[in-house]
């Protein structure tokens, strides 16, 4: 989640309170203070609140939360008279455009950095890595309206930011750092999105890079905003958040005519919520007027209406309000989570454990009674550990991860024994004998089931020891079995047995083959077993409830 840098002096000036008071209140508003420095704090805000990704946005919310200024902030929008056309050819490429003119900005180096921070955070949270929305901010003064959002030929060229020579759109995707980073968003289309002015000067190649022509500097006074994307609501959310942040900083906002529609409006939307539904969900007894008052301190416009209704005006920058319950939560935050008295519900139920848990705990009890120590190895492993090191054939049911993060973890285990041998490798320097077991989930194809594996490592570990262990385990699990000569290459020939239950192979035990021991870096004899717990009478299966 985005971490926003809040410079104290600017924040104090915007909020109208001192930093100590602000920092004390922030956590209960729903923010994590990552670190505090001499002149700023780094604060993490939630993914659903992109309106808090600027100091201006945070100050606006805190003024309400701290009772300094409550109610709906209003943002007047004048018509700029500027028009913007959208090429119908973009319909299947990147169809939506939002825009605004922002005048009378005063930028210093710090505020340019902060602006870029907001832009990046919005690209992440709203834009989903620029695919859904990409934002361009331009110096308005050197360009001539009307502006055109086009589907351009990849051979079209302009000077992109941070370069001094004109490059074609295709070259930008191959050579410009931003081009390489975001090429996947456009490269498969025959034509690329491009924004130009009345004189065909290029402003931007969205969602990749702006032109050098409209670079924003400390001397810039008037801005043109463009947001392009594949989702109209997200495109307009980005416009609203940026425009209102600038307005909070003192700029004036003007609308642009896009295909005959004036954007942005920065007007609130309205929802009528039920007082009873709100108080029932929160478990608080509040009147409609109290709810409205709490909502005003969360910067909504809110008035109680009739006996069971509050009319709520939602600020245009609140992208997260999808459902009435989103508003209820803000009532609870304004009320103060710390003031809500926890209570146990009257719900009366009788608890019961799952039969699989009972089975696993029975196995634990038997194995620990036999003197074995429990291990809880990973369930992620790789085919070398599972199969190659044990000289076993690859289990056709093994599930490979499509995008593993390391060579160690490429599949889910189909057996536990190999992982137990790994635990022995880790503990070769510890006193012998080592008798270890592990019980738990394995996965074959998409089905999870359970096995138990046990190993014994010491100078006299042998077939008989594990045979006795296996026999005790099976007897205590009410499992009748037969033993047949095994072919499992993980074990020594003539010293290995298959555990048969109702004529079906349910497990194996014996002395681990010396090649396998060496593959795991073990120098002492190891005897081992693994048993599929599905063979146990009354195995509860995959049902999630008893």
């Amino acid at each position: 989640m985005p971490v926003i840098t809040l410079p104290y002096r600017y924040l104090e000036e915007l909020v109208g309170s001192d930093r100590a008071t602000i920092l004390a209140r922030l956590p209960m508003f729903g923010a994590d203070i990552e670190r505090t420095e001499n002149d700023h704090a780094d604060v993490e805000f939630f993914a659903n609140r992109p309106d808090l990704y600027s100091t201006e946005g945070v100050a606006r919310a805190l003024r309400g939360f701290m009772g300094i200024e409550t109610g709906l902030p209003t943002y007047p929008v004048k018509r700029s008279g500027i028009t913007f056309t959208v090429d119908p050819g973009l319909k299947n490429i990147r169809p939506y455009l939002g825009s605004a003119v922002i005048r009378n900005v005063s930028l210093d180096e710090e505020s340019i950095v902060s602006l870029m921070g907001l832009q990046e955070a919005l690209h992440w949270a709203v834009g989903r890595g620029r695919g859904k929305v990409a934002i361009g901010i331009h110096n308005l003064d050197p360009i001539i309206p009307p502006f055109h959002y086009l589907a351009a030929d990849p051979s079209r060229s302009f000077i992109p930011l941070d370069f001094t020579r004109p490059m074609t759109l295709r070259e930008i995707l191959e050579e410009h750092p931003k081009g390489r980073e975001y090429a996947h968003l456009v490269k498969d289309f025959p034509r690329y999105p491009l924004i130009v002015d009345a004189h065909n000067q290029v402003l931007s190649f969205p969602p990749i890079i702006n032109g050098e022509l409209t670079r924003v500097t400390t001397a810039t006074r008037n801005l043109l905003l463009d947001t392009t994307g594949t989702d109209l609501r997200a495109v307009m959310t980005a416009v609203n958040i940026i425009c209102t942040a600038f307005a909070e900083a003192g700029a004036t906002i003007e609308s642009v005519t896009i295909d005959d529609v004036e954007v942005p409006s920065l007007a609130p939307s309205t929802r009528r919520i039920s007082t009873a539904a709100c108080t029932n969900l929160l478990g608080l007894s509040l009147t409609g007027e109290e709810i409205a008052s709490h909502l005003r301190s969360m910067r909504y416009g809110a008035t109680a209406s009739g006996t069971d209704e509050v009319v709520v005006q939602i600020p245009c920058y609140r992208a997260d309000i999808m459902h009435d319950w989103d508003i209820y939560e803000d009532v609870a935050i304004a009320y103060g989570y710390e003031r809500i008295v926890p209570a146990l519900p009257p719900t009366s139920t009788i608890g019961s454990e799952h039969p699989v848990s009972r089975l696993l705990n029975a196995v634990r009890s038997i194995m620990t009674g036999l003197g074995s120590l429990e291990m809880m190895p990973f369930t992620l492993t790789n085919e070398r550990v599972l199969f190659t090191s044990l000289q076993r054939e690859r289990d056709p049911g093994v599930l490979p991860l499509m995008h593993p993060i390391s060579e160690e973890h490429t599949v889910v285990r189909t057996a536990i024994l190999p992982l137990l041998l790994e635990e022995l490798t880790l503990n070769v320097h510890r006193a012998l004998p080592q008798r270890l077991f592990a019980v738990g989930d394995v996965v074959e194809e998409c089905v999870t089931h359970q096995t138990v594996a046990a190993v014994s490592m010491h100078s006299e570990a042998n077939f008989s020891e594990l045979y006795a262990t296996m026999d005790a385990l099976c007897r205590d699990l009410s499992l009748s079995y037969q033993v047949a000569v095994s072919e499992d290459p993980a074990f020594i020939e003539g010293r290995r047995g298959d555990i048969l239950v109702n004529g079906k192979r349910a497990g194996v035990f014996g002395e681990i083959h010396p090649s396998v021991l060496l593959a795991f870096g073990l120098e002492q004899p190891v005897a081992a077993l693994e048993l599929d717990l599905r063979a146990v009478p009354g195995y509860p299966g995959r049902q999630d409830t008893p």
Partner: protein
Amino acid sequence: MMDLTLNEKRLLSVLGSGGRSSPEECASRLGTTVDAVIQHAHLLHERGLAVMDTAIEHHYHLTPEGKEYAAKGLPERQLLESIKGSVELATLSRNPLAPIAIGWMKRKGWVTIQKGMVTPTGKAPRGEDEEALLHPEQGGPGMPQLLKRGLATEEMVTTYTIAITREGTTYLSGGVDLTEEVGTLTRDLIVSGRWREVKLRRYRVETLPRRVFTGKSHPYHRLLDEMRQILLHMGFTEIYGDIVQSSYWNFDALFQPQDHPAREMQDTFYLDRFQPLPSGWEKVQETHICGGTTSSTGWGGTWSPRKAEQCVLRTHTTCHSIQHLARHPDPPVKVFTIGRVYRREAIDPTHLPEFEQLEGIVMDEGVNFRHLLGFLKEFYERMGFANVRFRPGYFPYTEPSVEPEVWVKGLGWVELGGAGIFREEVTEPFGIRHPVLAWGLGVSRLAMLKMGLHDLRQLYRSDVDWVREVPVYGSPRKGGD
């Protein structure tokens, strides 16, 4: 009265009042071995009843070569005696003794060698080395030379003298019971009744025991089981489910939009497997797009059934809660589960690609946010965290959401899990008409706090000694404390 073993008492008696003796003599009088006597004398020494003086003696023995020279004389003596007047060096060198003898003759000043002629000086007195060769037991001043020449070896022998102390004598004067002791209570002693006559040897109970280790369950399992027990006591039913889930159950049924960053392959382990959607999936689709029958706007955009069919390793156990609710939409429902969940994270001390998650839900008519906080507070208090506070949180499938924090001495407020009420967009498509209180807890974080671990890997790749040492009940205690 001091408790002496029979052996100690017998040794004390053999020494007698004011007596002193060698272990050999004591051993022969007691009919035991010297080693046993020394061991018993040490015990008497510790009790202050006897002292044991040690003296170290050097014994010398001739090697076979030394013995030969003791009989025939040293090589240089033998060679010297073979010379009559001057002799040519070349001639003398043919004598087999020459390689050793010529050098020594010259060094001892018995001969001069000039212009290839060897001439005895006439001065060849018997040396200290020759004296030592004849009487090695005396260890005379010539012995170091013999040791150096490899003609003799040295043996160091420790001899003990055991002497009774004044306290020992006092003890003896009080009278000593020398009834026979036995070490082992045998079946024969028991059934024959002879156990009445014999005395069982007393053990030194202060001696530290041999360390043995019990077979036991893993410390982390015991913590997980403690949590299970708490939830069972609180009336929850345990559920259990598959590790492999369709995206539908893992994400879509929980109203996680299909373009949500957590669903990207950078964060989730996808599998090249697809599971058909259950009936009723269209309601989920509709809720995603436009909110369905709820007051929600939905996420807008599109919703792909194919995307929902793709399997993942479950990223949370909430997928089991929603499946259970879908099968049991009528109140009340109180269930929990604990299971491994998977996130595509690189391994470091505080991040692992798999870890345990605990998940609990309560669905009933009239339950509310206060009840959720009530359950959380109760659970954390039972886990030993007396101070619990609640802060606003954000999770895609709950609204309102809350982050419970517990106070940990030395660390301050520590976030421990997340909770909330399932969004209506989650419950409505499955016909669930009452609020669902839900919470999840990354248990490994709790394990680090409770067990004082600094590296999560210790839970899954465990040091056998750690598993052996962590107590089954209560907190760790160092041996001997």
